[in-house]
Every structure is written in structure tokens, then in C-alpha cells.
């Protein structure tokens, strides 16, 4: 499987080349176009219960679609729902990525996806919900963000503070704690940051340059109210 990002920027697409018999898993609804040699299957990753738990618990779409080059090599065009960048990374079999539920776009056949429950404080306060996706295995993984995607590299014991609603993905060698943005509660709330995550390396944290929740609040004022 090879891939290339078309139209990098706010409205990108990924072109995935599949050799004969190869498959790619994608977020359902992500396929834009495909060669006639490609078959689309709905597959429930992790079996029915796994898919159900992913749907119920993390709000991720029930089915992933599996695109299979069953009648010869071909290509698939994939795009996320929201405007924003796509990043492609190679999983080496040892690194594991924690991905917030809207971040997953597509993955090669060897990519494993599980839902994982976070601890209570992280789930309640972290802003990504109680359940996140744990993605491991080998092969290419494509993530998408709302806005541009930014990579933060952390050396061992290096720390970085991230507003939790900007989180996209982080490696499992990092740890994080949830803290108030400012020292007092009032200052935390009025600074508009509220709660933040303090990440500690080693590892990588991917963040998105726009906050979907804030964007939603902002755009609401322009939506006409129908009586």
C-alpha cells in the first residue's frame, strides 16, 4: 500500500494505491472515489461486540469500511468530514497511538484498532470522552484533524501543556495529567482555557490548530433559528 496526500492544506484528500488483494480500512463514509477493481465491504473491526462497544462508547462510527482490491490493483480516494489536514505515519509494531475518536481516517491492513477506556479523571476532564482509540500494529496510519495538524516531539521527561480540545493523538510512551490552566479556578475559567493536559515525554503528541467545540459555539450565532 502506498499513499499520497493531494491538495495539502485545509481540504486535502488521500490517494491510496492498493496492490492486487490488498485492503485499507477507512472511517465509514470516507471514500470519495475508487477504481472499479475495488470492492467496498463493511467490516466490524474486533467483531460485532467490539464494533458495538466502539459505537456506544467512543461515538466512533459503527462500521469501518474495508476497501479491497479484489479484482486487481487500483486506487482509492479518501477524505475526512471536517476541513483540516491529514497526516500519514508508519506504525513500526512497537509504537502505539492513542487517538481521540474523530481523529482516525484510515489504516493499512496490519493496523489494529481498539477502544480503550481512560481513567475517570482523564475521561471526565480530558475532553476526549471516556473512550479513545488505541491504534497499534504495522503499516500506514492516516489521521485527520480540524485545522492544521501540529506535531510536538518530547524528549524523555520533557513537558508540554496542551489545551485538551486540541488533542488529536499521542504515543503511549507519554503520560499526561489534567490540570487547571491557571493557579486559581476563577482565572482558569476566565482565561478561556479551563483545563489543560500536561504531557511528559518521551514521545509525540499531535494537536490540531482549531478547536471543534469552540468553532461550533462560534458558528451557532450565525445559524438562523427556525420557529
Amino acid at each position: 500500500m502506498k499513499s499520497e496526500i493531494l491538495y495539502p492544506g485545509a481540504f486535502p484528500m488521500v490517494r491510496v494505491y492498493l496492490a492486487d488483494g490488498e485492503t485499507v480500512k477507512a472511517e465509514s463514509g470516507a471514500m470519495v472515489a475508487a477504481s472499479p477493481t475495488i470492492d467496498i465491504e463493511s467490516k466490524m473491526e474486533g467483531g460485532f461486540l467490539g464494533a458495538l462497544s466502539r459505537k456506544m462508547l467512543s461515538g466512533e462510527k459503527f462500521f469501518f469500511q474495508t476497501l479491497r482490491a479484489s479484482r486487481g490493483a487500483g486506487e482509492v480516494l479518501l477524505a475526512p468530514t471536517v476541513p483540516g489536514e491529514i497526516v500519514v505515519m508508519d506504525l513500526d509494531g512497537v509504537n502505539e497511538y492513542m487517538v481521540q475518536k474523530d481523529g482516525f481516517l484510515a489504516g493499512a491492513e496490519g493496523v489494529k484498532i481498539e477502544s480503550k477506556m481512560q481513567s475517570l479523571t482523564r475521561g471526565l476532564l480530558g475532553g476526549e470522552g471516556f473512550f479513545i482509540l488505541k491504534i497499534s500494529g504495522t503499516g500506514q496510519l492516516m489521521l485527520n484533524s480540524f485545522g492544521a495538524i501540529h506535531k510536538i516531539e518530547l524528549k524523555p521527561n520533557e513537558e508540554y501543556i496542551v489545551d485538551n480540545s486540541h488533542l488529536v493523538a499521542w504515543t503511549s510512551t507519554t503520560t499526561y495529567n489534567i490540570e487547571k490552566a491557571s493557579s486559581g479556578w476563577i482565572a482558569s475559567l476566565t482565561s478561556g482555557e479551563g483545563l489543560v493536559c500536561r504531557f511528559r515525554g518521551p514521545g509525540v503528541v499531535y494537536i490540531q490548530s482549531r478547536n471543534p467545540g469552540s468553532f461550533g459555539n462560534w458558528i451557532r450565532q450565525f445559524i438562523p433559528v427556525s420557529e
Partner: protein
Amino acid sequence: MNLTPNALCFGDDLPATGAPCRVTLSVDGLRLIPSEGSPLIEESVAFAALSVAAGGLDHDQLVLSWMTGASARTLYLKDPTLIVAFRRMAPPELTAPLERAAEHVRRVRHSHRLFGGSAVGIVVGLGLLLWFGSDLIVEWTVARIPIEWEQKLGEAVYQDALSKETVLKEGPAVSAVQEMTQRLTDKILHNPYKFQVSVVQSPVVNAFALPGGYVVVFTGLMKKAESGEEVAGVLSHELNHVLQRHGLERMVKMLGLAAVVSIVVGDQQGLIGLARELGLNLVTLKFGREQETEADVTGIRLLSAARIAPEGMIGFFERLSEKDKERVELFSTHPMSAARAERLRAELAELPKRSPEPFTFEWKSIQESLAKSELNK
């Protein structure tokens, strides 16, 4: 030789995602074999040079660090079998730090379980509270509604309910009901309500009470009754619904959280608006069995205190339930049962015997006047 990597190595000169490598163990220490294309150089590290800790997102990875020349190296092991093997091979000097690391992992897992358990517990507890404690919540809420609000609220619904009905303003029937009301309310201790009892022209055999002291008696009920005592029995029952704030309780139950919130934030207009929204539903509101029993028992006590023969109440209820089961609306909102009559008789037996005082009116002439006013209409 390219082996499947089983660990990640970190360092200042290595990529931030870590350099994948293969770790093998021997009696002296570990051997690090970098994956193909990795900037990492193959090396052996003695156990003595290592410091160990727990790390990673869930504190379930074994973190080994050491110095290679001037640069620090940190190795993350995630594979459980590799971690077990390392603990077995490690010399006694490392046992204490390993034990500490393991203890840390156990503690973290324990607290996760504890958190998870308490989260489930809280959710289940809240569910149970809502299931079994809803009555308590309702009671708590109702106790916080001032009488004046209740009166305004009842008035609003009362106006809506009677806007299309013919309310009798005067006449023998009205004075009779006023006399009954007067005799009953005189005996109520600590009465915060100003009762307003109206007689409404309607063939329906029913009476109802609204929050705040608004009671309506239909002429249908008065025509069906064989004596003033029977009507007084129904009236006493309805007055006690008001006194026990049953209507308010039902309303809070129906309106639910919205009502609770408007009470807590003191939004009186909101509450009245909500009640209006319910509209006439409040009139046909069914009281619960417990509320009925409560109103029965306190009703019969009030009758006895007012020296009105309480047998009339029981007899009327029983008679209506036997004869006109389908047509009597009173029992759609006040279901009558043998058990209920039994309960009333038992209560009556316990009350001190008081000689009843008759009403000043002649019941037959009241009923005749009702029949006449209907003919005129």
C-alpha cells in the same frame, strides 16, 4: 538480520517517536539490536548500569535508563513476557527498584479499578436514587414551594379550567356547599389556605381540587348524593388533597426537573407558565393510591372533628362504586375499592364517637333547586 522490534529507545539524538529495537536478555545484561535504518547503534548494557522505573500512559511499561557515553538512553518495554523475563534475569541489586516499579503499577491499576468501580457505583446509585427516591425528591421540592406561589398557580389553572363552564354564583346549592366548607375549614388547625369552593353546572359526577385551595364540585355529584353529609364527605376528601399538597406533588412529578429547577432558582413565573402548559391535565390529574388513602383518612378525621356524620362519605363512595361504575367520573380519578372502604371503616372505628350536628339546610330542597335551575336553562 532484521528482528521484529519489541522495545522503543529514546535519546537526544534519536527520533521523538523512539527508535524501534530488539532487546535480548543475558545473564550480564541486555543487548540492543536496532531495527534496519535506525540511527541507533547496537550495544550491550550491563544490569549494573541500569536504573528502572514504571512509565507510559498507564504506567504499565518498564522504563530502563542508562548513559551511553555522554548521552542518556531511555528504553521503554511494553511486552509483558519481556518484562517478566527481565525481572527473572535481573540481579538482586535491581530487585528492590523493580519491586518499587511493580508496586507503582499495582497502585495505579488499583486506583484505576477503584475509580472505575466508584464511577459505576455512582451511576448505579443515581439510578437507584431516581428510581426509589423520586418521591423523596418530589417531597423535598414541594416543601420548598411557598403557599403564595401555589395559590397563584392554582388560580391560573382554575381560571383556565372554568372559563367554559357555568359556575353557580348563588342559590341554595351554593349556600349549602359554603356551609359545609365553613364547618370543615373551621376545624382545620393551622390552615394556610383560603379555600374557594365553586359549584359548577355539569352532569358529571365528580369533584376536584387544585393546588392553592381551589375546589370544584359538579352539580352531577350533588344530584347523585342522598344527603348533605355525603357531599361533605367528598368535600372533606378534596380539601385534604389540598392540605397535603397532593396536586402540587403530582404536578412536580409530571413537570419533572424543569419544575425543580424553576423552584430552586426562584422562577415563579416560569413555574406558573409550566403549570399552564399542562393546562387542564391538572384537573383530571390522577392522584396516587397513597395520596388517596391519605386524603381519605385525614378527610374522615376532619368530618368527625366538624361533627358531620362520616358514614355518609363511606356510604356514598360504596354506593357509587357498586351501581354506576362506568358512568361515575369520580372513580376514574378516585378509584374505589373494597379495601379502601374497609380502611375507612377501620379508621372510623378508631375515632372518638361524637354526636353529629345536622346541617341547617334541607337536602331534598337543595336537589329540587338544582333540578329547577337546569330546567330554566
